[in-house]
């Protein structure tokens, strides 16, 4: 699979969508998809399937856990010979449960859960559009003060923030700033890193600590004139925003992804899956 010429299999395409593709195979799969639009449309649909499944069911994992599901309480009940079984009173609770279940089921239909990724992407795009038009105040701390910037942002975001090197794509690091947490409240503050090329085009990288589910996710999307590439792993969420043509945007986004997921230790995150690479 590492050579360009080798055929991409169905398993590779599934792994691509499930975030299980070895990073070394990314380019080959994407090149193959570019040449096979019908399969590319299918793969895109699979990505939408993932988004829909998360939107439908992730909320159930964030609900407060009822006392009857606390392992310690269950263990105590067992030790005390307590044979109380919830199912024995289930019948009496059917009506209550029915009401609750309808409410719960209807909630998803009436107001589809706005995915956390959407909120983060919106924040990243808003911050991007606000600051890329600034000249003197584009960043809070300039690249010249890199060490200070890295220490400061890393400590506030509580994850190491090492600005990726995008010079190969003609983008120089301008600097960064700290931004408040999004309303969603599940991540801490965000770091925004800004890059600029010789033509004055700017790209920003918006990083927060991981969402509570720490799930791997990635998504290319547009917000008006902006292109955004979002991905998340068990450590951080990252949104790359710019107005570049698709191909350039992807190249830059991939560089950011590769550099930010490089781990000093061998613990593979969900997306930089190392097995088989």
């Amino acid at each position, binding site marked *: 699979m590492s050579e360009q010429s080798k055929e991409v299999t*169905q398993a590779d395409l599934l792994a691509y969508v499930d975030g299980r593709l070895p990073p070394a195979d990314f380019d080959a799969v994407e090149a193959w998809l570019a040449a096979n639009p019908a399969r590319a449309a299918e793969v895109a*649909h*699979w990505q*939408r*399937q993932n*988004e829909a499944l998360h939107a439908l069911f992730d909320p159930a994992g964030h*609900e407060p856990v009822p006392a009857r599901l606390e392992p310690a309480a269950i*263990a105590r009940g*067992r030790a005390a010979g307590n044979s109380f079984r919830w199912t024995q009173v*289930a019948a009496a609770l059917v009506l209550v449960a029915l009401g609750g279940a309808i409410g719960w089921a209807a909630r998803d239909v009436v107001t589809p859960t706005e995915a956390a990724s959407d909120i983060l992407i919106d924040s990243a795009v808003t911050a991007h559009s606000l600051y890329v038009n600034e000249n003197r105040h584009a960043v809070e701390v300039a690249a010249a003060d890199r060490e200070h910037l890295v220490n400061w942002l890393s400590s506030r975001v509580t994850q190491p923030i090492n600005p990726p090197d995008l010079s190969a794509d003609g983008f120089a690091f301008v600097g960064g700033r700290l931004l408040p947490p999004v309303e969603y409240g599940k991540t801490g503050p965000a770091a925004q890193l800004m890059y600029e090329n010789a033509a004055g085009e700017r790209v920003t990288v918006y990083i927060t600590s991981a969402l509570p589910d720490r799930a791997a996710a990635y998504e290319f999307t547009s917000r008006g004139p902006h292109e955004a590439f979002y991905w998340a792993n068990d450590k951080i969420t990252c949104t790359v925003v710019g107005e570049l043509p698709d191909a350039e945007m992807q190249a830059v986004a991939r560089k950011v992804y590769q550099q930010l997921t490089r781990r000093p230790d061998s613990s593979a995150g969900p997306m930089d899956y190392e097995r088989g690479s």
Partner: protein
Amino acid sequence: MSGFLDEIEQSVPGLRRYARALTRNADRADDLVQDCIERALRKRGLFQPSGPLQAWLYRILLNLYRNSLRQTRRRGDHVSIDALVIEPAIPAPQPGRIALSEMSRAIDQLPDEQREALLLVVLEGMSYEEAAHILEIPAGTLMSRLSRARTALRQLTGNAEEPRLRTVK
């Protein structure tokens, strides 16, 4: 013991989510999770922690779920609570998105084995290795179930506007 309990506790939100997605019924899902924890505590003496505890818990949950399905089918089907919900006007999905109500129906129509596999990988973020281990099937079987599930979901949600794959334009 408390380490064991803590480890179970950490898995509870994921188990609830998975059970909810399988049963589509909050109460039944939590009953399954409660049974799962009770069984885990009971079997604890037999459990050699050769594999991760989390995978073991998912496997117990799945077995309980499958047993409950068999019983339900023997007794005759109950009306699913979802079927009682009168669906209000569904907001149009954003372009390129699958309407959630459509996906909700589509996932229900998948064969059990495909639904179990897909939800483990997509929703629970299990690696292929973990999912195959939990389902007690070879890796190749898992991949073919995932593949068939993907294809079926695409057909079942076929009304959705063909999304653009932004990465390959």
